[in-house]
């Protein structure tokens, strides 16, 4: 059995760890509330944007807007939204496993978050060409951050460097559940949009102001901007939730460990006392 001093040292160190994880849990919890709120309040907008796009796209499909028009895919760009820091459970691992499974020579990546960058750089046959760009991730990100990424991708798309854009991120379901999502974004296909709840009223093609072409030119890039922005918010909310849960578990485990160690410490101490009494008693008997 370990000496009492050794056990005391371990208890102290585990308690310190628990304090740190507890603090990280609190920080993550407060960040989570903000990020969750932002991710959730954007959802109605996302839904209606889907609805508007959906009622617009089939009507003017014959116009063959480049963002709607699928072309043979030589190079598919995947926007990977991971986190900057670890200690958030299996969040990144799940995402990376899925990406690894789909990895192929036709893939190019754009990363957001440091974890994703180092993972993508470690993929087989990774060259400067497979990792197109790396954007930083901020807690208080704005729509313009999303737009910058989106415009970079759209530029590459219109110049023909890439033929399709996927988004890989974690979808925030609730504080306990985050789902890995890899979905195609560009070319925009009506079947990828969320089905609207309201009965679809077909819009007569004449009734677009200004012309359908101009409307599409305005709506589609914005649609991509918005989707990327929302994916970023979604990932942030997931990250903070996952970290909070991970840290909560860590704190609980540490507390349990402290309990076990305290029991062991008390046993060791009691044993020491018993032994001492025994020794004194033996010595006394020997003297008599």
């Amino acid at each position: 059995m370990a000496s009492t001093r050794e056990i005391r040292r371990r208890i102290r160190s585990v308690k310190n760890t628990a304090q740190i994880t507890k603090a990280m849990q609190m920080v993550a919890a407060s960040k989570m509330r903000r990020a969750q709120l932002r991710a959730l309040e954007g959802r109605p907008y996302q839904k209606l944007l889907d609805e508007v796009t959906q009622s617009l796209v089939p009507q003017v499909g014959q116009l063959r807007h480049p963002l709607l028009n699928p072309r043979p895919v030589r190079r598919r760009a995947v926007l990977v939204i991971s986190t900057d820091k670890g200690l958030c459970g299996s969040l990144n691992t799940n995402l990376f496993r899925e990406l690894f499974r789909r990895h192929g020579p036709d893939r190019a990546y754009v990363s957001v978050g440091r974890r994703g960058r180092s993972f993508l750089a470690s993929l087989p046959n990774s060259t400067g060409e497979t990792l197109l760009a790396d954007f930083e991730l901020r807690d208080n990100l704005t729509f313009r951050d999303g737009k910058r990424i989106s415009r970079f991708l759209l530029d590459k798309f219109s110049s023909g460097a890439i033929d399709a854009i996927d988004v890989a991120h974690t979808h925030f379901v609730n504080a306990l559940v985050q789902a890995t999502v890899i979905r195609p974004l560009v070319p925009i296909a009506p079947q990828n949009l969320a089905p609207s709840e309201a009965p679809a009223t077909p819009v007569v093609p004449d009734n677009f102001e200004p012309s359908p072409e101009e409307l599409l030119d305005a709506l589609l890039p914005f649609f991509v901007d918005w989707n990327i922005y929302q994916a970023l918010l979604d990932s942030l909310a997931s990250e903070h939730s996952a970290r909070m849960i991970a840290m909560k578990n860590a704190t609980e485990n540490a507390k349990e460990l402290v309990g076990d160690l305290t029991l062991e410490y008390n046993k060791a101490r009691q044993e020491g006392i018993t032994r001492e009494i025994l020794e004194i008693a033996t010595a006394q008997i020997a003297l008599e």
Partner: protein
Amino acid sequence: MSSLHVEIVTPEGVRFAQDVEMATFPGEEGEMGVYPNHEPLITRVVPGELVLQTGEERKVLAVGEGFAKISAARLVLLSDMALYEEEIEEAKVAEAIERAQQALRQKELGEEEQAATAALLARSLAQLKVKRRHRSA
């Protein structure tokens, strides 16, 4: 009489979802008044003044850029801003306008910043318009 269900949604959430008798919003090609049973239509929205009329009650909002989808019983308006008249702080808006105009005059902005500042300016002017008009009325 049928009514028009209006939904106004911004990135910050649903700002308005109620039935009204009539709505007026700033479309790209001029003010658009919408009554129930309007023909289905999709259009762009520019920064300006949105008016929702139900009987004697009149609600005025300042809206930013976005899109509107009209069907017979429903008007969906997506915008990057939707502020009720009473939410607008005139002094702050005037300040924002001043700053934006100064920035635009200096012309040292990148293309992207220029567009963002111009959009901010348009939004601020729309707010001011809503605020001023209804005080004098």
